[in-house]
């Protein structure tokens, strides 16, 4: 019963916004879930493999553009488009990894920045493919009715369910990674790459597979963005700011943890959107401030710190119980 409690609470919390039905609340929740997905995507590479990328917007953008182009030019239904977008982002990540993984530490981070900017310039200038600065706009989404219920694309609830499924999937993937052999290999790569090679770990392959998974998730996020906001252009989906936000969410939440991205997204998105509502510009000031505070005072992130406190409280309680208190 006690073990089921967190799950029950979680599901109830997830269903609450649907029950309440307020569009603004649903919008913020959708954003939180989308950023959870993106934060989890970044966390897979940055938190687990220890490779700090400042260019994840490129993968997000590939997913967004792929979904749009497949739908508007080839008539591929957007939900398939999202999955294909993720796959394309994963494919795109392979040559990127080939180039960037030759470098370590801050040099790797700077290289990803340059690569992402190159992607943005391509999107801006390759007009025949991407419409350049004009971008793409979805005016109508297809009428479908799975299981006999027509989907209402105007309702936020539809997108909320989609976003929730995507975010849950990302967190599940992260949890799987943590327990797998690849996850263990990634820890080794993070701790000492040479020692990892010496015990037979193919570090390049481990990093590439992880990057592909990370890219797939980011691409899914991009596809979702395209569907939800219905408009994309290079500035919206390929700019550095997006990359930085993904990093911040993962770090503030807790690097290398499963729940971190959710906590980080909840915290930063809610604060950020509240500020955006009040101030119009400069709402990211919250992100900057919290990033600094977390690194200074809570490097394990909000989730990491909460987890540590939880464990400490548990330990004290069982000590009490053992002492008959």
């Amino acid at each position, binding site marked *: 019963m006690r073990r089921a409690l967190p799950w029950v609470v979680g599901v109830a919390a997830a269903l609450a916004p649907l029950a309440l039905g307020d569009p603004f609340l649903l919008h913020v929740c959708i954003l939180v879930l989308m950023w959870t997905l993106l934060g989890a995507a970044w966390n897979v590479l940055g938190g687990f493999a220890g490779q700090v990328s400042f260019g994840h917007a490129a993968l997000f953008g590939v997913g967004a553009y792929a979904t749009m182009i497949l739908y508007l030019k080839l008539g591929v239904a957007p939900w398939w488009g999202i999955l294909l977008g993720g796959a394309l982002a994963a494919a795109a990540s392979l040559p990127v990894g080939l180039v960037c993984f030759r470098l370590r530490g801050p040099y790797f981070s700077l290289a990803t920045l340059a690569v992402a900017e190159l992607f943005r310039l391509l999107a801006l200038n390759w007009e025949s493919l991407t419409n350049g600065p004009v971008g793409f706009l979805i005016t109508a989404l297809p009428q479908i009715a799975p299981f006999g219920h027509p989907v209402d694309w105007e309702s936020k609830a539809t997108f909320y369910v989609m976003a929730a499924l995507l975010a849950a999937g990302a967190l599940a993937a992260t949890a799987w990674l943590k327990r797998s*052999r690849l996850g*263990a290999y990634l*820890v080794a790569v993070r701790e*000492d790459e040479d*020692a990892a090679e*010496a*015990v037979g*770990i*193919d570090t390049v392959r481990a990093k590439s597979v992880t990057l592909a998974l990370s890219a797939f998730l980011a691409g899914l996020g991009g596809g979702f963005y395209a569907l939800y906001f219905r408009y994309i252009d290079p500035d919206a989906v390929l700019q550095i700011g997006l990359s930085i936000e993904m990093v911040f969410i993962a770090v503030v939440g807790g690097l290398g943890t499963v729940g971190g991205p959710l906590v980080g997204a909840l915290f930063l998105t809610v604060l950020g959107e509240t500020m955006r509502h009040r101030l119009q510009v400069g709402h990211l000031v919250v992100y900057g401030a919290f990033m600094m505070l977390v690194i200074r005072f809570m490097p394990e992130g909000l989730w990491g710190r909460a987890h540590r406190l939880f464990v400490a409280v548990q330990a004290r309680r069982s000590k009490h119980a053992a002492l008959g208190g």
Partner: protein
Amino acid sequence: MPLLEVERLTRHFGGLRAVGDLSFTVREGEILALIGPNGAGKTTVFNLVTGFVRPSAGDVRLDGASVIGLRPHAVARRGIARTFQIVKPFPGLTVRENATLAAFLRHHARRDAEAAAVAVLERVGLGARADRLASSLTLVDQKRLELAKALATEPRLVLLDEPMGGLNPSEVDVAAELVKSIRQRGVTVVLVEHVMKAVMRVSDRVVVLHHGEKIADGAPSEVVKDPAVIAAYFGKRAA
């Protein structure tokens, strides 16, 4: 056929020739010591054999198949393991986790890998400390862990880079016995070492390097009397 054949191995770093035209073989089941004054190129040989550095010329063959050009993980997979002169544990992980990572090479399931790892830890004498953090170990235990990681990959040949460095005389004795026990389990050993007492006790054959070249190759008792070797260590007058 010898287990390991090193043929005319050469490596330049800019203008410096670290290893020059080096050839020697290692028979299966023997313990070979690689000795020589500091800067003779011994660690470079290890780096060349295990794929951390590419040779400028020459070949290295395991069981007749060349390992040149393979990345270090592939060399480990073929069956050559190594330790590092300055130990490289995974500092934030426990002893057990360190060894398990190495065991994953041959056992895909976590449970099997852990079981194999624990067995290796027992053999090197770290069984009782399996749950300690690698960074909290004493030097002797860190060296044991370094060895355990290499052995957990179930190699045919293990290269030990100065395993006795920094150990006191009684620890050296224990280490020497450990090296012998490795051979007893069927793993061939090549070790680089400065501690002569250990070299004499443990090795079947000795290869002496000086300025990257081989100057002697034979049984320990003969090599020690070789004038070229004495000259290399102590200068021409002493020889």
